[in-house]
């Protein structure tokens, strides 16, 4: 069985290894360089007091894009490894060949699932380790690691996503048993899960904190927090249309515009998740996706073993 798994998947393994090697080289080189630039810039700006006006990393668009694109890695794992693992074999009928060669269905399926999950975890972890290391510098500079686009490619959640996507592809293939529909279901399912979690679940994993201050003050939101909403509020109601400046606060009247609006009752209200919650949120989301993966693996297991071949 080990031989069979290796022989069937050795090409995939080689391609993945080659792609990762190239990716790792790019990440290492740019990461070191960016850290260097940032460090020297900090030394200079602290001496000059110009740290608020730093404008770094202008030419690094390409690597930034590549790193952002690693958000697609779990989905690719689900499509290229998850669906082909069982679904494509059942589509082409070669599972019957293995099953009539003295290998029980159970052993065959356990081997396939084991390899798939291990590969998804390893590959997901390898990519996220590289991305998280590389992101140390941008995280310090932009303080945006809690933002959805960055949250999903760093830390521990990408490993959870990889396991989930692999299990989703596996289950889709095991239930549908046709490659193309299974691929479609995996794409739709994965994107739907990500969108749902990002927009409706993660923001409410813990009750967001609120910072409610008069218009002329700064909200006390710690650096690196995730801003969920920012509203201008007047008498308890948020202003949704364009703010028209009341006549008495016009700049040509002299005096501080902000102070004037504050006196009229305008306030800034910010809903946010504080930066301190970053790791707890990572772990909760990771656990949730791993649990989903376990459910999907069970579905695949029973679909293959209990139904007619």
């Amino acid at each position, binding site marked *: 069985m080990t*031989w069979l798994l290796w022989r069937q998947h050795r090409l995939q393994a080689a391609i993945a290894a080659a792609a990762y090697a190239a990716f790792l080289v790019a990440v290492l080189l740019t990461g070191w360089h960016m850290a260097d630039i940032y460090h020297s810039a900090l030394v200079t700006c602290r001496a000059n007091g110009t740290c608020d006006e730093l404008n770094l990393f202008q030419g690094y668009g390409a690597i930034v894009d590549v790193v952002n694109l690693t958000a697609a890695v779990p989905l690719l794992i689900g499509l290229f490894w998850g669906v082909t693992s069982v679904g494509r074999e059942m589509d082409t009928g070669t599972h019957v*060949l293995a099953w009539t*060669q*003295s290998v029980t269905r159970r052993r065959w399926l356990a081997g396939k699932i084991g390899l798939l999950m291990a590969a998804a975890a390893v590959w997901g972890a390898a990519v996220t380790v590289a991305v998280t290391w590389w992101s140390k510098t941008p995280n310090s500079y932009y303080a945006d690691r809690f933002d959805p686009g960055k949250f999903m490619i760093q830390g521990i959640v990408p490993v959870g996503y990889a396991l989930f996507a692999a299990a989703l592809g596996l289950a889709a293939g095991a239930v549908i048993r046709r490659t193309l529909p299974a691929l479609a279901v995996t794409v739709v399912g994965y994107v739907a899960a990500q969108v749902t979690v990002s927009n409706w679940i993660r923001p409410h994993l813990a009750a967001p904190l609120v910072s409610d201050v008069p218009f002329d003050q700064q909200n006390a939101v710690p650096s690196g927090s995730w801003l969920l909403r920012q509203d201008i509020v007047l008498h308890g109601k948020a202003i949704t249309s364009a703010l028209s400046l009341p006549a008495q606060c016009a700049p040509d009247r002299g005096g501080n515009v902000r102070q004037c609006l504050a006196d009229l009752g305008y306030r800034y209200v910010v809903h946010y998740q504080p930066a301190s919650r970053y790791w707890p949120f990572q772990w909760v989301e990771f656990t949730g996706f791993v649990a989903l993966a376990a459910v999907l693996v069970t579905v695949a297991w029973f679909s293959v073993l209990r139904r007619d071949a």
Partner: protein
Amino acid sequence: MNEHAVETSGLGKRFGSRWALRDCSLNVPEGRICGLIGANGAGKTTLLRMLVGLSRPSAGEVKIFGQPPSDTEPFVRDVGYLAQEIPLYRRWTVADHLTFGARLNPDWDDDATRERLYRLRIPFEQRVGTLSGGQRTQVALALALGKKPRLLLLDEPVAALDPLARREFLATLTAAVADGNLTVILSSHLVTDLERVCDHVVVLNAAQLVIGGGLDQMLASHYLLTGPSRDLGALERDHTLLRAERTPRQVKAWVRLDGPLHDPTWEVTELDLEEIVLAYMGQSSPAPAVAEVVS
């Protein structure tokens, strides 16, 4: 050898409201080559898949060497199967498939398998997807035989082969049976091949078993009776009438004799297997099925 290789009783399979096979009871003794005959859609593939355990019965039972099919090592070792589509890994070479067989089967006979393919002049280093239909079938058969099963089930293995490839396939198969310890069930809608190779026959028609039993006994009990036109009541009472054809002067009756024929005015002609099968299939309603012609 007390147990039959295959024993089914009341076996049936339903897909939704449609029965693909119904009330099938048959016995195939060990060591036989059994031909499973029927038109497309008669239920042959449905029956074979239930025997292998790929499909679960909706009714009735199946026993293979005394045990129902199960997802266990002993069963999957004992039973080999060749599906109609001949599933092979298209991008693998023939040699890859042989390694596959050796690694997955504890009882793999590597020398015999290599020799078999070598004698058929099948190139080992060629990708299976580029082989001809006949060569692919031989590779699949070699894989199925190499693991030394006790029962081998073949679903229309020669349907897409030219006559030479068919001959080579059947020769390989019968030689393997000659080695001993192998029972074969092969399905086909071409009866002539089966007659020379099989010693046991099962005929399916419209999802039902029509007749099953030893070939010799079947040939010895089915005849074409020709004679002057007359009433067939007596014939129908004493024997089983399968089909009758009348002309103004003459009547022809295809019968299964369930006892000695007393009427000497009949001219008796022997029937070959194809004619017997056609007589059964041509009936508008099936005669009561005979699960075992005395063997």
